[in-house]
Structure formats: structure tokens, C-alpha cells
């Protein structure tokens, strides 16, 4: 008489992939990665994209040679990790929003908005700029810089370590302040019983041996913005008179890499129309110049600039990325580090199983400070009046921060809800979204396919290593932990 409810199962939100003759799935609701055995694989195959009743599923598994108890086990295990679910839908835990008093971890100090180069694609000075520096200070004062350090230490809760990134403009045009504020920050952090670490981004034109030695002594990580060998670098990374900058920076880079011993020296390449030969750029920066790591990103544009990358160029870039990814994997299987940052970063996130509420730390653990002391979500919004989040003297405007963060939350991005890559991407760069779509909370739809293909590739590398050299992943995780 009594009718029992029979569950009908559907596949959960999974991205399945294969590597090293093994089947895996990436569990989208969590960012978890599981390796499948034959049994669990056949359950997922039986369910497919449709629905199947519990009894039918178990019968099919028994038919395939499983003992009835094992068949029930298989189904239960997949149900418990939410790889499959029935009509009794348990809502997956959503990435939660951080609390309003989320402690700061890092500040990006734009110690000057002046630059000695005039790179044609620059987001700060180029055609798509959003900064409005007119009438504002060009150089940060030491008072503002010290106030920023105090603000960071006071706003970082009980974090053991905080971080300062020096940025510009061209950062080294205000090296005098940089040196002074590092001394102040070391003392302030020590007095507060905290650790403080530093990094800076530079175009390398102003590096001297004296500066390099200071950076090495203070263990200040250096990222060099550059685009490759001479003819690629000089295409768009030029002085105001149009002269290329490669000849100036080359000897300085060699000195930097030779003398700076305390931190990895990384290069950050902006890909633009005509500057897409990723393999050649990588070889030059890694092998000829000796950078430890090289990362690439397409230029941010509103979509209609002569330096924008079109779809064909992006396809070519992706092909080169795949070639470097092959290399990265070969290195890792031999237990060696490869310097292609675009794989390393993703692998680092896959190890943790990151499931992001927001694409990055902007406005969360990280804020930008303009030369005048205005706070912004990150360095890319420096001096943009539309995105000010307060001032170093008056603190963070919580209302504006909340507005920024609620726009940027992955849950607020409709298109992301059906995408399996959202735990890592979360819609992409807030700044790029604003430049492209006029809203920091818009998903960066122009690179969705690209991100999915790249994430899938990195998952395959991850799966291969998990199967063939899991020790490398452990060591890699520790390396990340040290940074």
C-alpha cells in the first residue's frame, strides 16, 4: 500500500576530463577534483545528460557485473560528494561573500602617476584610460605613504604578514620615496609584531646597480613590464618621442637578474596586435635574458583599438600557450619548475580547489592608493574618480566598497551561472569589464571560450601530475605557500 519515493538521478555540475589514461571530474560547485574508477565512471555514463531512476541505475550496474551492495555504494558515494543528485536537491553551498570587516592583506601604492615611457596601449594613459589625474598630485608624498602603511597595519586584522606593492606610472621615478617608506614600514611592522613583504612593477628603464642592490637587500620582488625581443618591445613600449626602450632596458635587466638574489624576477608581457609570438617572446625572456617566470596577458581595450587582439590572433596565442603548456608538463614530470606563469598560477589554484566569490582580491584583501591618497579597488582604478573607495586619511567607504563587491560577485553575473570554469574565473577582471562593457560587474564574455579551453588544459596537466608525479604537486603547493 505504501508507495516509496524512488529517486531519479541527474548528473551534478561537473566538468569531466581525461589525463594519463585516467578519468577525472572537476566538481564545479566546490572546485574539487576527483579521479574516477571504473564503477563511478559507469554510473556517470549511465546517467549521461538525462535522468535515471535509482532502481534502474542499480540494476544496470548489477548487470554490468557489480555486486548489488557495491552498486548501492557507488551511487551513494557519488551522491554524497554531489557529483549526482536526485529531485531532493540539496543546494550546493554558494561561494559566500566576505564579511564587511574583511582584513586587508595588501596595498598597491601608486607612488607616482608619471611615466617616462608612452606605451601606446597603456590603460593609464592610452585611449581607453579611465584615470582622471588632472589637478591631482603627480608624486605621492612621504606623509601619504606612511599613512598608507599605518592604514594597512591597522586594517589587516590579525594577519601575520601584509604586503606592499609599489606601482606607477613608472615606479622608479619616485625611488627616493620608495626607499624611505620601506625603512618606515619595516620599523612599523616590527613594532606591531608583524611581517611585511614588498614587490614592485617597473619598466626597467631607470634601474641602477644601487637600486638593484637595495631591492635585493630588502627582498623586494620585481616584475618587469616588457613585451619581448627588441622589435616586439619597441613596437609599442616607446618613449614619448617614439624611440623604442629595448636598448635601454636590456643591460639593466641583465644586471637586475644577475644581482638580485633574494626573490624571483618575473616578466609580464602584454599581448597586442602584432605582438603575439608567445613562443619567441618566452624563449627570449626566459632563456636569453634569464627571467625566472614569464606571464602573458592580452591587452585590455574597449574592443576597437588598432592594438587590440582579434579572434584570429587570440587563436594563435592559444596555440602557443598549448606548446608552452606541453613543456611545463614535461618539466613537472621530471620534477622541474618551468617558468610559464600562466600554467603555474592556475595549477596553484587547482591544488587548493579555489572557488572564488570574486575574480581577484580587488576591494577585498587588496586596495590601491593613488598619489593623492585616494583608495581604489586596485592599481588599475587609480585616479579614476568614478571608482574611488575612500581616502587614506578618512578610511574605506564601506558603502562604495559593498557596491563594488556586490556587482563583482560571481553570483551576480548571469552568464557565469552555467559555466563550469567559474570557480577560477568568476567573470574576470573588474577593470577589463569596465573598459569593455562600462560595468565592473559585467562578465568578460569576450574571453569565455578562451578561459574554458585554458582551464581544461590546466586540469589535464593537473590530472597527469596527480597520476604520474603527485610528489611534484606537493612540492609545488609548498612553493606557493612560501610566496
Amino acid at each position: 500500500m505504501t508507495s516509496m519515493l524512488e529517486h531519479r538521478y541527474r548528473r551534478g555540475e561537473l566538468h569531466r576530463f581525461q589525463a594519463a589514461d585516467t578519468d577525472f571530474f572537476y566538481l564545479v560547485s566546490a572546485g574539487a577534483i576527483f579521479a574516477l574508477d571504473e564503477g563511478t565512471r559507469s554510473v556517470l555514463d549511465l546517467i549521461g545528460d538525462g535522468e535515471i531512476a535509482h532502481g534502474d541505475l542499480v540494476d544496470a550496474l548489477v548487470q554490468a557485473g557489480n555486486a548489488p551492495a557495491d552498486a548501492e555504494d557507488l551511487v551513494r558515494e557519488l551522491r554524497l560528494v554531489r557529483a549526482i543528485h536526485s529531485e531532493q536537491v540539496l543546494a550546493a553551498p554558494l561561494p559566500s561573500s566576505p564579511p564587511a570587516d574583511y582584513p586587508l592583506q595588501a596595498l598597491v601604492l601608486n607612488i607616482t602617476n608619471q611615466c617616462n615611457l608612452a606605451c601606446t596601449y597603456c590603460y593609464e594613459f592610452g585611449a581607453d584610460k579611465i584615470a582622471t589625474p588632472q589637478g591631482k598630485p603627480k608624486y605621492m608624498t612621504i606623509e601619504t605613504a606612511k599613512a598608507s602603511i599605518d592604514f594597512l597595519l591597522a586594517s589587516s586584522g590579525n594577519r601575520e604578514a601584509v604586503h606592499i606593492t609599489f606601482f606607477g606610472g613608472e615606479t622608479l621615478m619616485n625611488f627616493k620615496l620608495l626607499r624611505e617608506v620601506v625603512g618606515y614600514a619595516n620599523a612599523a611592522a616590527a613594532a606591531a609584531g608583524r611581517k611585511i613583504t614588498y614587490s614592485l612593477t617597473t619598466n626597467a628603464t631607470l634601474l641602477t646597480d644601487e637600486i638593484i642592490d637595495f631591492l635585493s637587500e630588502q627582498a623586494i620582488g620585481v616584475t618587469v613590464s616588457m613585451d619581448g625581443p627588441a622589435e616586439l618591445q619597441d613596437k609599442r613600449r616607446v618613449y614619448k618621442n617614439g624611440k623604442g626602450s629595448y636598448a635601454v632596458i636590456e643591460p639593466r635587466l641583465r644586471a637586475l637578474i644577475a644581482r638580485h638574489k633574494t626573490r624571483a624576477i618575473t616578466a609580464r608581457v602584454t599581448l597586442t596586435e602584432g605582438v603575439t609570438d608567445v613562443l619567441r617572446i618566452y624563449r627570449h625572456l626566459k632563456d636569453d635574458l634569464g627571467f625566472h617566470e614569464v606571464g602573458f596577458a592580452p591587452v585590455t581595450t574597449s574592443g576597437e583599438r588598432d592594438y587590440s587582439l582579434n579572434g584570429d590572433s587570440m587563436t594563435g596565442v592559444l596555440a602557443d600557450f598549448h606548446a608552452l603548456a606541453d613543456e611545463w608538463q614535461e618539466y613537472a614530470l621530471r620534477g622541474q619548475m618551468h617558468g610559464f606563469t600562466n600554467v603555474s598560477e592556475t595549477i596553484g589554484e587547482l591544488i587548493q580547489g579555489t572557488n572564488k566569490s570574486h575574480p581577484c582580491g580587488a576591494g577585498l584583501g587588496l586596495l590601491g592608493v593613488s598619489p593623492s591618497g585616494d583608495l581604489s579597488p586596485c592599481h588599475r582604478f587609480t585616479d579614476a574618480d568614478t571608482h574611488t573607495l575612500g581616502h587614506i586619511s578618512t578610511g574605506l567607504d564601506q558603502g562604495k566598497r559593498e557596491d563594488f563587491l556586490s556587482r563583482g560577485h560571481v553570483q551576480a553575473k548571469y552568464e557565469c551561472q552555467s559555466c563550469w570554469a567559474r570557480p577560477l574565473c568568476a567573470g574576470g577582471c573588474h577593470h577589463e569589464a569596465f573598459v569593455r562593457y562600462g560595468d565592473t560587474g559585467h562578465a568578460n564574455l569576450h574571453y569565455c571560450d578562451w578561459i574554458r579551453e585554458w582551464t581544461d588544459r590546466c586540469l589535464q596537466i593537473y590530472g597527469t601530475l596527480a597520476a604520474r608525479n603527485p610528489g611534484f604537486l606537493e612540492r609545488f603547493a609548498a612553493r606557493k605557500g612560501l610566496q
Partner: protein
Amino acid sequence: MKHLKPINKKAQTIEASIAPIEDVVALQQSTPLPHVPMGCSLSFSPGWEVDAGGGTAGLCQPVERDIYDCYVTCFWPVQVPDHVNYSPDWASNCAAATKDWRNLDLVFP
């Protein structure tokens, strides 16, 4: 977990979080399942319930159906016809309680 292998930290966290559930399931499966009487509130018939208004008029199945379940299967001594000694034929005109419940009559002992 026997079949899925967690290979990143989040997957290991999930494995750890379901381990207690797995233990309970394993314990339950090591001994025979207890007999659960039909008709009581452990299963999906209305059982000893009242409707939203506190009465029995709005139940999704007629209250007599409960009596029928108790008559045949329930171990709990209640005021229902006794199918062993006194009223063995009480339900003989009721093949399916949801349809034929009107054929169940009162019993006056």
C-alpha cells in the same frame, strides 16, 4: 570513499566531511535492518496525523486507510479490529484501501 579518489585539497576536505556519514551507513549495513511497520509515520502514509486544521477531513488519504494499515501490519495495540481473533474478515471487501475504504465498517466488540 572507495571509488572516488580526491586529488586536490578541496576534494580532500569533502572526503573528510562525508566520512562520518559513511561510517553511519557502514554500521547500518553490518546488521539486519529492523522491521518497520507500514502505516505508521515512519513511512509515507499519513499515519497518526491530523490535517492542517487539526482534524482528519483534509488528509491526503482517508483516515480509514490508516486503520486498515494498523489492522494488518501494526505491532502497536490500538483500538482497531483484530484480524487474528475477532474480525478476520473485516477488510475482505476492501481490496485497495484508497478506492474501497468505504467498505470498511465499524466493529462493535
